[in-house]
């Protein structure tokens, strides 16, 4: 079963806010000079911010903020965030892959930005009722 796709906009302001909230102040997430100096196309989003946004889609689908029992992702490509008002957009889609022996629902998650997959092998196990 396919779940309703969700879209998340990410701007430079979001990266600054996430840096402060998470404590991850790596300059590749706020300095173009530093990011391009290490070979990136520009400032990129924290992988963990992308994982958190996809996690919001998962909790939305599960219908409860505390339903997630297991959650894992692989970061495949950087999410480049331009220094403008629009930033970029991440689209998160999910497919229900069945139920485990413990009665948990398995959801396979895909996150795409600019036509490229930014998360792969992303999956969550959720409780569907408490």
């Amino acid at each position: 079963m396919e779940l309703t796709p969700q879209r998340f906009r990410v701007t430079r302001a979001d990266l600054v806010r996430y840096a402060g909230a998470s404590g991850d102040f790596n300059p590749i997430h706020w300095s173009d000079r530093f990011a391009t100096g290490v070979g990136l196309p520009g400032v990129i989003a924290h992988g963990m911010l992308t994982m958190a946004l996809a996690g919001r889609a998962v909790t939305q689908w599960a219908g409860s903020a505390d339903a997630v029992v297991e959650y894992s992702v692989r970061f495949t490509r950087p999410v480049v965030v331009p220094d403008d008002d629009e930033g970029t957009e991440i689209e998160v889609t999910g497919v229900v892959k069945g139920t485990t022996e413990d009665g948990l629902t398995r959801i396979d998650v895909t996150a795409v930005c600019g036509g490229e997959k930014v998360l792969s092998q992303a999956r969550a196990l959720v409780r569907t009722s408490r």
Partner: protein
Amino acid sequence: MPMDPSLVGRSYPPGGTYLVGREKIREFAAAIGASDAVHHDPDAARKAGYPDVVAPPTFPVAVTMSSSERVISDPDLAIDYSRVVHGDQRFRYVRPVVAGDELVCTDTIEEIMSRGGHDFLTVRTEVAAAATGEPVVTVWMKLVVRGED
């Protein structure tokens, strides 16, 4: 030089205690746009059966970051941090983290692998209640250390 695989199994005992603050959870939830009431409103959290506001699923990284830095900066691993890329991340929860939790982290090197000129390091962090040792969440982080160009 590839990472020394004999370091697999090395464990780093808990450092300090992390006290989870209500405002920190609210700040983290706001930063990821998670507006669900259980992240922000203690009454809503209590109605859902928790003692205080509930952290979003990826919040434990804010707790484990400083403990896993002990591993990354271990001189025996000799990691050049400028070549590090975050590869994989995984959480397995016993229960959600809530405000008021006092947590301790025990880190263990779970896997070291070299492939295609790159090194892969997986660190497992067991996050537990400081007072009782009750397990709360297990966090796995795989880092890729890119080889010399």
